[in-house]
């Protein structure tokens, strides 16, 4: 999450378009270390990759211009439309109070998405789901819950970037 936002900010410093090798070089990073952030940003539509160049999209610029509540709102909207979140959220919602356990979700991922590493995917879902106010997870009880839309939407007054 923080890595992805950092990458978008670096792109902004380079006026929105830069060679991926130059970014790695500039940050003293291996290309491999950069890829998770590139993948995440691409999945969310915040950047495009074009023959080795990373390009900040308009959606990416919009994301950067928002304060933290506004960013959460955007991610809430975007992530809830991605196939994996849709799939998992629908599954959790089938349970009473839209709440189930970690083990249950892990079993579901193993069964329905056998190509994915279940534990890693679960951690990823929890991290992004928490940030975007889509999921709540209590690691003590192992309970995971879908946030209902009424509590997921920060009020408009909190949206501006605090300056």
């Amino acid at each position, binding site marked *: 999450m*923080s890595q*992805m936002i950092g990458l978008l900010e670096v792109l902004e*410093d380079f006026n929105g378009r830069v060679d991926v090798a130059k970014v790695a070089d500039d*940050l003293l990073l291996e290309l491999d270390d950069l890829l998770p952030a590139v993948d995440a940003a691409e999945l969310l539509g915040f950047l495009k990759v074009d023959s080795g160049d990373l390009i900040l999209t308009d959606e990416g610029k919009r994301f950067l211009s928002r304060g933290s509540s506004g960013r959460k709102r955007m991610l809430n909207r975007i992530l809830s439309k991605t196939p994996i979140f849709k799939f998992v959220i629908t599954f959790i919602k089938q349970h009473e109070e839209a709440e189930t356990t970690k083990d249950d979700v892990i079993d579901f991922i193993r069964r329905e998405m056998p190509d994915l590493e279940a534990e890693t995917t679960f951690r990823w879902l*929890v991290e992004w789901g928490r940030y975007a106010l889509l999921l709540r*997870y209590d690691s003590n009880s192992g309970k995971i819950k879908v946030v209902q839309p009424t509590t997921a939407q920060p009020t408009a007054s909190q949206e501006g970037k*605090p*300056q």
Partner: protein
Amino acid sequence: MTPVIELRNVTKAFGSGTARPNAVLEQINLSIEGHEFASIVGPSGCGKSTLLRIMMGLTTPTDGEVYYRGKPVKDVIEGMAMVFQTFALFPWLTVLQNIEIGLQGRKISDDAKRKRSLKLVEIMGLEGFEEAYPRELSGGMKQRVGLARALVSDPEVLLMDEPFSSLDPLTATHLREEVLDLWLNPEVSPGSVVMVTHNVEEAVYMADRIIVLTHRPGTIIKEVHIDLPRPRNPRSPELYRVVDEITGMIA
């Protein structure tokens, strides 16, 4: 105007009174003004962190005086808060509880503490992570909690000891931006920030004034005012010129 913090002839030596006292800091004269972002840079082992601890009243100098708003410092100062390189969060407490620790000892109701802590959760973008434990967080998120815990007490001075050094470069880029935003945000802004770093680029990008220390025993060799307009581009030639100048003094 009285400086917020003033150090006069401060010396710190470990094993003083023995035949070979080990001097860490020598003859430090330094003032921190209200509304400034100061950065202390120098090679490792130059006593930067010790200097920060002396400012906060966590360590007493061997010699010399420390003043906070013109009064001699005798104890840990309430108006200051510290952010650590290693985050220093309690692993058995949730994010929200870790932030509330920053208000420990304050004479306000539990309700007021909760309310203020939730405000910081919102400002630091930690909504959704209130019930999470530090082990579940990335480094960037942990340092957000560290910042929230420091800022929850509304400090006049925020002290930061290598706050971005244990983060990966992308996360560090992002958090530097966040800290500059916080400093300009009237809702939380500490009047002054003092940041210790070994990263000269980071200091030039963020600070109004840089205090350059030499190797052990640490003494101030130069103070550099950074007049580059904000927001700064970390990759501009103007910025690099200053970075080169300061790096030359340390190397």
